[in-house]
């Protein structure tokens, strides 16, 4: 019985509250905005090759977001979610892992998938839900996933991936694998009951999972001070008995470092780690949102000055690993490629009619087959009403 364990706390004979101020939370910062590093900073394991790979991923991220938001405005795409200003959190997280580690995301972490090597075509096919989409055109844009790349397909209901990540990591542990699971979520989603379940179970069952909270200040229109009253999400780690680390989310070196350290700890100690990356959602929540309804331009401007991509570029320039010409060329090439890919993907066929009933079960039931047959007969009768599938089966 463990109640006795607590007896090592001090005895008091007058009531004394503890509260949020009882715990101080340091924030890890390595890189300054001008590209120099803080004195005495402990850099992550990172060579030129990795640094350039990270930067190219960030650039791809920025360009894809820009172009897709524009495509949505042009009416070519139904929906998009950018991660403007907080790209370092997802890219840096992935860069701190090994490729065999599972990544379970919320939705604003396309950067991690880019780092893993998901192709531009794969991104496009998902967004245009065409027949080449790995997800078979069933989910809204940005719900990517790839079993080959160990990136779990996104699911819209918030927070559900958190206890799932605990289970996934527990399985990795029991099977003795050299793997961890990293689970991204927003500070808003951390209010869900599933957050509580996932973190507590990870502590109890000693699952090697890294909980990575992107605290970007908003959940749609709800600012984080209407989301919780504790000291961010990090302060909750204390309650679960989970090792916790707060990091500047716009500091790519700090994010990589934090993730590397977390991975090492999680694997060695078979225990969860909580990382809270402090950032800001510079853009709209999604293409359906307009943030001018709930926050000021001034607030946004303050954070624009913390651009994580520019910060990394400054560092690369200082290292002499990169120059302005390369930079310009990179962004230009990326823009061209993305535009070309949009054109191809939007013209690609929609998924075959049979995908209506596949993957509901491992094999379609008799009832489902009969339902599909009757849809087919109906489509054949009214082909003009079902242009995506008519004449294509």
């Amino acid at each position, binding site marked *: 019985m463990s109640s006795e364990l607590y007896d090592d706390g001090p005895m008091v004979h007058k009531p004394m509250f503890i509260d949020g101020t009882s715990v101080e939370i340091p924030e890890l910062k390595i890189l300054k905005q001008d590209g120099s590093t803080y004195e005495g900073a402990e850099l992550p394991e990172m060579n030129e090759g990795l640094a350039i790979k990270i930067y190219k991923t960030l650039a791809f991220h920025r360009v894809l977001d820009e172009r897709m938001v524009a495509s949505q405005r042009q009416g070519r795409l139904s929906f998009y979610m950018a991660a403007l200003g907080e790209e370092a959190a997802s890219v840096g997280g992935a860069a701190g892992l090994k490729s065999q580690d599972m990544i379970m995301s919320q939705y604003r972490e396309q950067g991690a998938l880019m780092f893993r090597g998901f192709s531009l075509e794969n991104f496009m096919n998902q967004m245009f839900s065409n027949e080449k989409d790995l997800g078979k055109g069933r989910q*809204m844009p940005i719900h990517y996933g790839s079993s080959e790349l160990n990136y779990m397909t996104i*699911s819209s209901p918030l927070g559900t991936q958190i206890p799932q990540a605990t289970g996934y990591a527990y399985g990795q542990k029991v099977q003795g694998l050299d793997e961890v699971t990293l689970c991204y979520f927003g500070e808003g989603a951390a209010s*869900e009951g599933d957050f509580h379940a996932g973190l507590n179970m990870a502590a109890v069952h000693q699952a090697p999972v890294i909980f990575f909270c992107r605290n970007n200040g908003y*959940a749609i229109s*709800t600012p984080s001070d209407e989301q919780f009253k504790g000291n961010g999400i990090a302060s909750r780690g204390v309650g679960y008995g989970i090792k916790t680390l707060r990091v500047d989310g716009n500091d790519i070196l700090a994010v990589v470092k934090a993730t590397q350290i977390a991975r090492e700890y999680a694997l060695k100690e078979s225990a969860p780690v909580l990382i809270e990356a402090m950032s800001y959602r510079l853009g709209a929540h999604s293409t359906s949102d307009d943030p001018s309804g709930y926050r000021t331009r001034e607030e946004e401007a303050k954070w624009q000055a913390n651009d994580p991509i520019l910060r990394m570029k400054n560092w690369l320039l200082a290292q002499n690993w990169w120059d302005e010409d390369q930079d310009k060329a990179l962004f230009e090439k990326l823009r061209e490629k993305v535009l070309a890919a949009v054109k191809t993907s939007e013209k690609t066929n929609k998924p075959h009619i049979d995908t209506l009933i596949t993957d509901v079960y491992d094999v379609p039931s008799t*009832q489902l087959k009969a339902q599909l047959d009757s849809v087919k007969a109906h489509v054949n*009768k009214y082909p003009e009403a079902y242009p995506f599938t008519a004449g294509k089966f």
Partner: protein
Amino acid sequence: MARMNMLQAINNALDIAMSEDENTLCFGEDVGHFGGVFRATSGLQDKYGKARCFNTPLVEQGIIGFANGLAAQGSRPIAEIQFADYIFPAFDQIVNEAAKFRYRSGNEFDVGKLTIRSPYGGGIAGGLYHSQSPEAYFAHTPGLKIVIPRNPYQAKGLLLASIRDDNPVIFFEPKRLYRASLGEVPEEDYQLPIGKAEVVQTGSDITLLAWGAQMEILQKAADLAANDGISCEVIDLRSILPWDVETIANSVIKTGRLLVSQEAPLTAGFASEIAATIQQECFLHLESPIERVCGLDTPYPLALEKEYVSDHLKIYEAIKRSINY
């Protein structure tokens, strides 16, 4: 009378409810300052203050738990679940708590003042997590009422009735109609009855029954059938729980045929309950099997949404099937 879309009608009903009773509160994710992601609660925080119209943290089980407590306390909570697809984390608080609150306490306590609003249904390219029609999941729960409007006029009158009803009510709002459905709506207060279906068009050959956004589609199919000389009686069920067996049975006794259309998947949907009850009530009057035109037994798709849903053409075919049985 004013021309309103469904969102305006809902906003107007909420405004009336909040102005008449200072214990009425509206809350949910992004419901406060922003007025909700669909803007149904727009302007209410400005008018009634932050204490009565506010954002909650992002936790559906908490929103309904909190609302249950408020209702038990004597306040009149109107809780919004941002999308009906996200109501499931609150399933326990709705099905095990709200629905059983009065019964389990022998009427010592109740949450009759609770109303839950939620945008629901498909047709907006939302895929499997922004298109669900979960009414049947709740319909198996004695103690709940479930109401679904088909247009702005219905929305205002039924929502006011739901807010004032002394039982927990789930009010599902067909989000495809939010801006698409326009109509004349009285500016003053009025209520429409819960538990009563409405005969929207009388006819003699077959009864067509649906609710919410399917009503439009039903009407379109009825018009097609009219060209073939088939006379359809078109009924809006309006309340899923309790539902108006009498009106439906009377119609079927007259027409001898019934077709029910729903957006949700076929199996164990609410159309099944209707078919089960009506085959019993009208056994000797039925001239053909009751037709259910529903979504396929799959999650709601994205690219192939058109193929999946119950549309006017599928209903029209089913009408002919029933007539020619």
